[in-house]
Each structure stands twice: as C-alpha cells, then as structure tokens.
C-alpha cells in the first residue's frame, strides 16, 4: 500500500525541506565573531604548515649542517629561522614539533573526552549510590599529584610517546567527568527524557541519543579549552625531560632548549614560542566564541 506514486511524492516533499540544527546555527554565529574567525584561520594555517610544510623544505629535522651552527635567521642559506647548536634547521624542527604537540593535544583530549563523557553520563544518569561511589573515586584521583602519577608510569613502562598520550589523557578526564555529570543531572530532569522513558526506551539509548547530543555544546567548548592545557602539560613534562626524546621534538622541548641559549641565540626561543602562543591564543578565542555562539540567550 505504501509504494504508490502519491505516497512516494509525499515522502519526497517531506524530505526536501531541511531545517537548521542548533549546531549549524551556532556555527554561523561563530563565523560572525571576528576574534574566533581569525583564531580559526590562524589555527588552520599552523596545522596545515605543520603537516605539509616539512615536505617543501630542503632540510630534515635531524640533519646537521656543520657549516652553520647557531646561525641567525638567514635567507641566503635557506635557514629562514636560523639553526640551533647542532646546526639543525629551526623552521623544520618547529613544524615537526608542531605535528607532535598538536597530535598530543588532540589525541590526549579525545582520550579524556571519551573516558570523561562515558563516566560522567553514567554517573549522572543512574544517580544514587553508583553516582556517589563514582564521584568519590574521581575525588581520590584528583587528590593524587598527577606529576608523580606520570613519573611512576614513565618509570614502569619506560619513556614512550604513546604512554605520554595516555598519561595526559588519564589526568585530564577527571574534570570532564565532573562537568558532564553535572550537565547530565540537569538534562535528565527534562520532559523529553521522561517522554522517552515512558516509551520504555532503554537507558543506553537515552544516554546516547538524548543526553550526549545535548551535551555537545558543553563538550565542544571544553575541548577547545582542554587542547591548550594538554599542549602546555606536554611542554611542561618535556621541559622536565619526561616527554619527547631527541631527535624528535615538540614545541615544549624546543622552548626548553631555546631558553638555555636565550642570551646568545634569541631566535631559538622566540620562534617556537611565537608558534605556541599563536596556537594557544587562537584556541582560546575559538573556545570563547563557541561559548557565546552555543548559548542562544546571549545574542
């Protein structure tokens, strides 16, 4: 009965009109915000440079040029940002470092979001004793100094870049879990959750389809604020010598090395620092803009 022409036409007509979701609406508002738009542009330029830049440069990040040690920025020799104490090209090292810092930033954030959202929604949705127990565990973990935690991990498993992702992610999810739990508790009181429950919908479906999509705004904003903090955390660990190993490098390593030669070779500190500051600032601008864009009351 359903495959008649008239019905086909009806279905086609119904599907032809598209609505604007809250997220696409928010994106439009984000683009209108000048600060976050320039943040988006700068961030994408830095990301693209880090990914593709090294292929267009004639030096490799581990390549030593014995004729140019501590060479200041110089266009003739092709060392646009100068070289370091081992005669390695700084620009290519910054771009490689950018790859690593950004990857750590993104992966560690994703790890923490994944754990945090799962943990937080379960704790908030089911409530009661489960909630109390789960939140006490988070509090205990909060109380542990994360540095010791990371050092212990490094000592047991050796220095490993993947471990670094995991270690940072494992520290950062705690805050995420708390925020998500609070939001879940307020969303679960809404009538559409009750409507779904009255239909006999399973809890896992309610969490996946009704609660997490409504957390999206909060989570996205929090991600843009978490990526910078993860990059800084990585830089800090690398600064202490717990992070990335030579000849691989990250912005944190470059800055820590550059600060040693600050008086004789200023470029070794200024350029990596510039890249890092630009990235962090644009991420913060994007986060700020997103928060405004996602809050419909504010416009």
């Amino acid at each position, binding site marked *: 009965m359903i495959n008649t022409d008239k019905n086909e036409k009806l279905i086609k007509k119904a599907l032809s009109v598209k609505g604007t979701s809250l997220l696409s*609406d928010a994106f*439009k*508002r984000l683009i209108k915000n000048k600060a976050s738009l320039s943040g988006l542009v700068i961030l994408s330029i830095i990301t693209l440079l880090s990914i593709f830049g090294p292929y267009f440069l004639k030096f490799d990040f581990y390549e030593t040029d014995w004729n140019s040690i501590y060479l200041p920025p110089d266009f003739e020799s092709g060392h646009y940002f100068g070289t370091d104490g081992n005669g390695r090209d700084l620009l290519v090292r910054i771009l490689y470092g950018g790859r690593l810092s950004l990857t750590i930033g993104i992966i560690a954030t994703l790890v923490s979001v994944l754990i945090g959202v799962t943990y937080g929604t379960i704790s908030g949705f089911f409530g009661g004793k489960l909630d109390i127990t789960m939140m006490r565990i988070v509090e205990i973990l909060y109380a542990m100094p994360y540095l010791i935690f990371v050092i212990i991990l490094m000592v047991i498993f050796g220095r490993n870049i993947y471990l670094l992702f995991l270690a940072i992610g494992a520290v950062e999810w705690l805050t995420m879990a708390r925020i998500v739990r609070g939001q879940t508790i307020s969303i679960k009181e809404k009538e559409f959750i009750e409507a779904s429950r009255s239909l006999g919908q399973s809890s896992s479906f309610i969490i996946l389809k009704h609660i997490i999509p409504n957390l999206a705004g909060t989570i996205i904003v929090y991600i843009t604020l978490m990526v910078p903090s993860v990059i800084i955390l990585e830089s800090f660990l690398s600064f202490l010598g717990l992070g990335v190993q030579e000849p691989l490098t990250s912005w944190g390593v470059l800055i820590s090395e550059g600060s040693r030669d600050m008086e004789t070779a200023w470029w070794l500190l200024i350029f990596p620092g510039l890249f890092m500051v630009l990235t962090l600032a644009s991420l913060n601008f994007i986060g700020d803009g997103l928060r405004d864009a996602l809050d419909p009351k504010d*416009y």
Partner: protein
Amino acid sequence: MDTILDVKNLIVKFDTTQGEITAVNNVSFNINKGECIGIAGESGSGKTQTFFSITGILSDNGKAAGEVNFNNLNLLELSEAELSKIRGKDIGFIFQDPMTSLTPHMKIGDQLTEVSIFHDKKSKSESIKKAKEVLDKVRLPRINNLITKYQHELSGGMRQRIMIGISLMCNPKLIIADEPTTALDVTTQKDILKIFSDLQKENITIALITHDIGVLAEVSDNIIVMNEGSIVEKGKTNKVLVEPKHDYTKHLLSCVPEWLK
C-alpha cells in the same frame, strides 16, 4: 482626568540574526490617573515589549522610537541613570513568574527595604516600618518573622504578594503588572486581583498586561487589545467585551468557553 502616561507613535524594533523585527508598530495611547488599564493580546502581540520599552528594560538588541511622556519627561530620551531613578520609585514593575523574580539568597525583609533605602534614602528602621505597612496592604498575614524568611519558604501566591509589596515600597504612581497571575492558581489569582482593586482605591494607576480576558473583565476600567504589534481596539472594558468591534477581539472572545459567559 489627568493623564499620567502618554505614549505617542511608539515603535520597538529588534535586531536578530534573521534581520530586523518590528515588535511594536506605531502604538499610541494614554493612561489616566487612578485607572486600571488592561492590555490584552496573545504571545507575540508586543504587549510586553511596549511596557518594557517605556521603562527602558528592553534587551540589548532592541531599540525604541517615539514619545513616552510621564511626569513631563520623555522617558525614551532619558539616560540610564535618570531612568533608574524613576524605575522602582515612580513606576513599579511586577513580573509573571514569582518563582524567579525574587533573589534566592536575600531575606524577604531585605528585598523589601532595599528599594526604599536606595530611592528614598530612608533609614533601615523607617524602611522596616514601611515594609510592615506594605505587607498589610498586600494582605499578607502579619507574622513577625515573615521578613526574616527566604523566598523558597513561601508559596507562589505569597511570593507574588511580596513582589507587589516591593513595587509599593516607594509609593509609586504607576504599577505595571506583566501577567501577574498567569503562573498562579485560580483561588490565589482571585486574591491578587482583590489587592489590585484595593490599590486602585488608593489612587494608584495600574497597567495590567494579560492574555486572560476574564482577569481584565474583573478589574480593569479601560482595555487595549493588541495584535501583531498594533492596537486593534481600545475603549471602556464593558463596552469592548460586550460589543467587540474588531474581528480579532471577537476571535479572542470566541475562544472563551461558553459556560463562563
């Protein structure tokens, strides 16, 4: 009769992402001293925005043009500082939702006295005396510890009475009540309406904004019917409601269930 508020060619516009929206379109009316004027209309008719613009509490993306004369002053031309001297003193405002219009962390007494200390520069003890007087007026039982309570300890009807009390603290000339009884039960609504007619006897002018025609029929002298930002009909309440001229007014009245008529 003296005119207390004279509105001429009022236009209110809002800047939104969908472009400019005209909420109130060329509205003119006046309110006489001591009367109770009712403003009827459905949501989106611009009835609330008209009075928000008069007291300068439009949201940031809204702007008002025209002329609003109150006490020989054009309210639309006043600065924010000058307006805030009038707001709460000469013009009181009562909102729809009594649950959210009181501050949760302040005691009822402090919220009552706050306005008169701010506007009339009264001392604390004088204000408390006045507060007790006002609580009598809004027919709240004279319990001594009422002013030391917090809002969550009171019922919705009591909170709305406190709101009316706050607006009475500085002896206002005009009270604007925006859907004051919509969130309340019918029996409580009846009590609140009684308070309004008491206030009217004290020569306080009341502008009552509501979608409930029954409420207007009970207390208002004159009535303004608004639809889509313009006034469609105005006149004496018993005239407009008994012999409506405009189609929209007839439509509104036809939605009222038969047995009430």
